[in-house]
Every structure is written in C-alpha cells, then in structure tokens.
C-alpha cells in the first residue's frame, strides 16, 4: 500500500494542497515531573508498536540486564536516553526525538526531561508539539513541576493534552484514586487555554492501556494511549486565516529574476492577489509563485515558496508580506508572556534583541510585570525573573516590526529573546498585546530626564546601587507607559 503511494499518478507535483494539510504528521510531547516515567512510557509505546529494530532491542536488553533497575524487566527508557550522562545517571537531560509510523500517520515523539534544571529543553520540545502527554505518578498526582510543564505547554500554544496517570499498578489499579487525580487536574487546567483534555490510566512498565487495553482496569472504557493518538486531529487551523509570509531572503538570479523567499505561515496566496509590506505600508500584486518544480497556482500555510511581485518593493529579510485588509501590527511596544531559559536572570541593563519570524529588533527597554506562581497558577506582581520562570513583560523596541498576537496567528506572534552580548537564546515568548507607538523621534519628543524624575516619581530613592537600579527601572517603566499611549519619549538619565 505504501508503495502504491509512490506511483506516477499520485505524485503530480503542482497540487494546491498546503504542506500542513491533513493529520499526516502528529508531533507529541511527553512531559511531567521527574521519575513519573516519561521515557519508560515512550519506550513502551515504541516497543509495543514494533518501532524498535532487533539490534536496538538487543542493546536495550543487554543494558537492562546490566542495570537491573526494574528488577527483571526491560528498561525501556534506554531507548530514549541517548547521552552517556543520561545513561550513567538514569535521568533525561535533553529532549529526544523519535519517529514511528502507522499506516495512517507519522508520529514524531519528543521526550522531554522532567528535572527543573532542564526546563529550557522541555520548553524547546513543547514549542514543536501539537499534543502533550503529561504524565503524573498515580501515587502523587500533579506536582509543582507538573504544573510548570502544563503552564509551558499552554504558553507555547498546545491545545490538546493527554493526562496519563502512570504507575496504576502501584496503587492497586484503583479507580477512585484515578478519578481524584483527574478531577484535580481538570480544576487546575481551567487556568489554561486547553481545548481538549483526555485522562488515561496507564502502567508504562507493564504496558497497560499504552498500546494494549488493560484487562486489570475493566472499569476504564476510554481509549488506550495509542488508540487516542491514531484518531486525534493535531491542530485545527481556521480556513480563512489572513495571509502572512515573513521574508527570509531576497533571491536574485540571471534574467533580472528577483523573488522574495519565505515560508507561508498562515492563509493562502495566488498570483494576482494584492499584498502589502506591513512595515512600510507599500503594496503590490503577486505575479508568480516560483519553485524549482514550476510555478504554483496557490500556496498555503507551511509551503516554502518564492514570490515574484509586479513591482519590486524595497524590502528585505524581516519584512512580513500580508494580505491587504487584515494586516499585522507594525509595533514598537508590546506585552508578552515568556519563559526565561537562561541561567543568567533577566537584567534590565542588559542588551537584548527580539527575534521574531525573520526579524531581529533591538529592545530599548523591558520590564517584568508579573510571574506565574506554580502553586496557584495565578500571575503575581513581580519585577524580576530568573531561569524557569514564566513572566508577563512589557517590551519597548528600538524600531517597529510587524507582529501579530499569538492567539490569532502563532507563527507571527511568537519570539525568542536573544542576548546581544553572546547570542544566547535567553527566553521564548508569545505576544499578548502590541501597539504601534509614536512616529520616529522628532521635535515633539518628551524627554524624561534625571531631574524631572528625582523631583517626583523617584524622590524617595537615594544613591545606593539598589536605589539606582530602581530609579532606572521606574524611568523605563514610565517611558513604556507614555509610549503605549502614543507619547514619543526619550529617556536621558
């Protein structure tokens, strides 16, 4: 059957079907607190669905025998923990990517580490996933790290979550116990934007309800994990989403060829459509959608194409091409929720760059408004933010850039924050509010200077390092507030 798919008639190249059409590929994340059995669950899933080759099986059997951590049983986590340090310490440090396919679809499994220390790797994995399998140990229920992982899944845009209540064998396969955990999780999940939560009682070590229906938990009549994964629709995309294509490169070739190369992040485009560069407001018409396989009649979300325009726009990498009616925001002030990934905490004095789809914009100032409390999951006022925190921030940019709100268009509404000093990715975030601020600095600019601030807003502050930092923070904050209502501001302190 697979071979038939390769025959000539099926492989017509120019098909007006976008690359992300259908549930052909489902990306799964496994996450949850340390020792709740993530790697074991995935190892079991791969083992039971015959995605493990004989030599890999032999290697795992051999290593399990040496470690004997699970008594006589096979140590399935060895299939995932590919780094020497992971095998030595029996923990997962970085995400592992595994692939397997059933006749219907390709599964990409991203196994995330549970340790708080490796949250940055979990966040990396989560951002690539359509569906999260969140594990809890049936003996303990959701822990602080489980809630943190759930919050990160929510932040990066995951809508469907499987709560896998693992190690059911260790609580005597008890339904009341399972129902309590399920109820608690549904309550805490109200803080998030998940659209579908499925709860499955499993035992990864024995394989109950993973790929094989459990005979010991007859009270459970829902799907097994594999059944669910085979059926689930990965992501619902609105059919009428507005067209966006962030420009990656301007391609030039002989014969005066000039094209704008990029991946369509939402909507569709056809030759003859009017488009606009969101930043400059310049508009034109699409003449061709050029690819090496010939021109396309249309391109949609996920397609990597090159647009040839009727009149060349003076734009380069970082521009976002858009449909005319529903354009991105040409923003220089924004609010965002982000997860801090770097071991060095947020420092308002540091230089940061905002990396959006293809643009890199200097951050003029940034302030933390609130942190998520991983006990209550509420946002609580704060001014600092450190590694593994989820924070709400306000960011002022050195120049405007084209953005969307993440909840509307995720691919043009997300960003990473980059250290201007060493290039490190220090945070990943989503835009919750954005506004185009003042026009470029001119005669009407309001100057926030030291004397002005010292008279009022900062009159309680002295000359200690702490007070000076607070002085600076308030100045930036005042500037952001003023700019957000359209007053052009220059900070001179």
């Amino acid at each position, binding site marked *: 059957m697979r*071979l038939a798919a390769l025959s000539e008639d099926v492989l017509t190249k120019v098909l007006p079907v976008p690359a992300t059409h259908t549930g052909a590929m489902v990306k799964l994340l496994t996450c949850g607190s340390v020792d709740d059995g993530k790697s074991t669950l995935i190892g079991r899933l791969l083992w039971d669905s015959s995605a493990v080759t004989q030599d890999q099986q032999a290697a795992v059997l051999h290593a399990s025998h040496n470690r004997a951590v699970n008594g006589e049983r096979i140590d399935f986590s060895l299939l995932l923990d590919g780094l020497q*340090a992971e095998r030595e310490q029996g923990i997962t440090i970085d995400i592992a990517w595994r692939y397997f396919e059933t006749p219907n679809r390709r599964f990409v499994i991203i196994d995330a580490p549970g340790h708080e220390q490796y949250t940055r790797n979990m966040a990396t994995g989560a951002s690539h996933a359509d569906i999260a399998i969140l594990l809890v140990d049936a003996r303990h229920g959701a822990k602080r790290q489980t809630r943190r992982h759930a919050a990160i899944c929510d932040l990066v845009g995951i809508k469907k979550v499987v709560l896998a209540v693992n190690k059911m064998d260790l609580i005597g396969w008890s339904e009341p116990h399972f129902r309590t955990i399920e109820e608690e999780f549904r309550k805490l999940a109200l803080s998030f934007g998940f659209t579908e939560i499925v709860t499955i009682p499993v035992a990864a070590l024995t394989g109950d309800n993973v790929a094989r229906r459990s005979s010991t938990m007859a009270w459970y009549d829902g799907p097994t994990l594999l059944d669910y994964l085979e059926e689930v629709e990965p992501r619902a995309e609105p059919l009428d989403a507005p067209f966006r294509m962030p420009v990656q490169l301007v391609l030039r070739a002989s014969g005066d060829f000039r094209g704008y190369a990029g991946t369509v992040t939402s909507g569709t485009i056809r030759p003859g459509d009017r488009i606009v560069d969101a930043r400059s407001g310049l508009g034109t018409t699409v003449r061709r959608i050029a690819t090496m396989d010939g021109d396309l009649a249309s391109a949609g979300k996920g397609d990597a194409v090159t647009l040839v325009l009727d009149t060349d726009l003076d734009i380069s990498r970082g521009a976002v091409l858009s449909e005319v009616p529903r354009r991105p925001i040409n923003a220089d002030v924004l609010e965002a929720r982000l997860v801090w990934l770097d071991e060095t905490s947020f420092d308002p004095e540091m230089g940061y760059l905002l990396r959006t*789809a293809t643009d890199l914009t200097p951050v003029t100032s940034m302030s933390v408004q609130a942190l998520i409390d991983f006990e209550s999951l509420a946002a609580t006022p704060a001014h600092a933010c450190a590694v593994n925190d989820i924070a709400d921030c306000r960011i002022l940019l050195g120049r405007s850039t084209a953005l969307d709100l993440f909840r509307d268009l995720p691919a043009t509404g997300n960003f990473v924050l980059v250290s201007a000093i060493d290039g490190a*990715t220090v945070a990943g975030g989503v835009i919750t509010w954005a506004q185009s601020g003042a026009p470029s600095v001119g005669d009407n600019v309001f100057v926030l200077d030291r004397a002005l601030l010292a008279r009022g807003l900062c009159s309680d502050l002295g000359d200690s390092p702490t007070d000076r930092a607070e002085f600076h923070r308030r100045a930036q904050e005042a500037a952001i507030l003023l700019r957000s209502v359209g007053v052009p501001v220059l900070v001179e302190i």
Partner: protein
Amino acid sequence: MTALTSHLKLLEAESIHIFREAAAQFRSPVLLYSIGKDSTVLLHLARKAFWPAKPPFPLLHIDTTWKFHDMIAFRDRTVRDLGLDLIVHTNHEGLARGINPFDHPPSVYTNIMKTQGLRQALDAGGFDAAFGGARRDEEASRAKERVFSFRAAGHRWEPRRQRPEMWTLLNGRLGKGETVRIFPLSNWTEGDVWRYIAQEKLDVVPLYFAAMRKVVERDGQLIMVDDDRMQFLPGEQPVMRKVRFRTLGCWPLTAAIASDAADLDAIIEETLKAKVSERAGRLIDHDQAGAMEMKKREGYF
C-alpha cells in the same frame, strides 16, 4: 494526496526553511557532501531553497582516500552536471603517518582521517556554519541534536548545554569562537529519504542497489573488496554475493547486506520492513560504547 506524500511535502518545506534561515544568518556556510543518499537529498533541497539562484555556498567532501570508487565517480559527475563548487580535503598528515582502516582501530582511523580532516577543512576555509545530512532517527545521541547545533571553540559538541530552539525560530547569533553545524534533515527517517528519492527521481550511487559483488565475510559482516589494498585475514576467500549497501562510508568499514532489492520500490519496501537499524552496518559506531557521542564531542558531524 495520501498521508505519506503529504508528510514528505511538509519535511521538504521544513528543510528549505532551514537552508534559507542559515544562508541569511551566517557569513560563510559550507555543505558537507558525503555522496550518500542523505547528501543527495540534502543537495537537492539546497537547490530548491535558492532556485533559480545556485546555492550560495560550496560543497565540501572529506576524502579519506578509502571511499568506494563508485562514490568518487558519482561525486565528480554530480558536481560537473550541476555546475557546483566542490572543495575536496584529505588529512595529508594522517595519510603520511600511514593511518588506514586495516591497521588502526576504527575509532583512531575515524578520528584522524574524518574528524580531524573535517576540522582542518572547516578552519582552513573559515566557515562559520556547515550543513550536514545527519538525521535524528539514525542513532541515540543524534536523536538529541538541535537543528542549529552549536560547537564551542575546537568544534566541540557540548550536549549538556545545547541552545534552546523554540518553534521555527532559528537563532544563529554566534558567541565568541563558536561555529554551528546545521541539520536540515533532522526530522527525516531513512524511509523518508528513499521515498523522496523515488518521488523526485534522484540519482544515487549504484552501490545502494543489489548486484553481484566481491565480498568477504568477517565477524558476521560482509565487506566488499573495492580494490587491491584489501588485507585478507588468513583463510579468507572473496566470494561473489548479491549485496547492496544501506549506508556508504569507507569501504573497509562499511558492511553490505545480502539483498535482492535492485530498484527503488524494492529498497523502500525493504527499508520499511527492516529489522535492524541502518547504522548496524557502520563498523565505526560499535567500536566503543557511546561511540557516536564521543565522535561528535570531538567534532565529527
């Protein structure tokens, strides 16, 4: 369109996106071209990413002088037909010391002729980014790689300190002394590579197709006698067997498999049903525990 052809289209678009991000962000990239099926797909995707322009970077082949003769012929023909720039580098220091795959353990030979050779070539060319055809499904430590895989000074991979890589946002800003390896085929599987080769009608080295070839059986592995540098062990007699290769490397260290798969359809069927993993035929991976991770830490791609 079936589910499977649609996922190939997704993978293709993702790889093109990666090529373009890299070309836009790095000063001087190079494509590590090792002639095999993965390199063939990698090169094809690079051409698509920049078409109608040519890929804005040269190809680099690390020639250990022990590649199959068919591979070198295929390499030269491909580069000529497509009008591409190719840099061929050999670690002449290693060659002068007589390093070879028969007299030295695979780990020593690979380190000197491949890893050191690669580091020499990257340093000499001043390249800050190198594309490679590695896939995450190949091996357990590769399953842990980022798409933009940063290397500290000396090309060292530090698996415990990988840079976060969220969504499709590829941050290519380099710290002091850093370079990057880029893996556009990260999410492809061996099956995908073959299905794509069939779909795009790409030429591959004939050694991938089953044919009668002169081999010896050694420790359960079939080693092809590619030229008269072969060192036979006492009692070893070459025999003609119908074999093909699942991966291609240095001929004394790359085992063939007994197979009748003589065309792409047969290869795809065989691949999807395979009961052993692809790199089982790579003798260099089994020399020591965690061999691939060690090679990568030393700078192997």
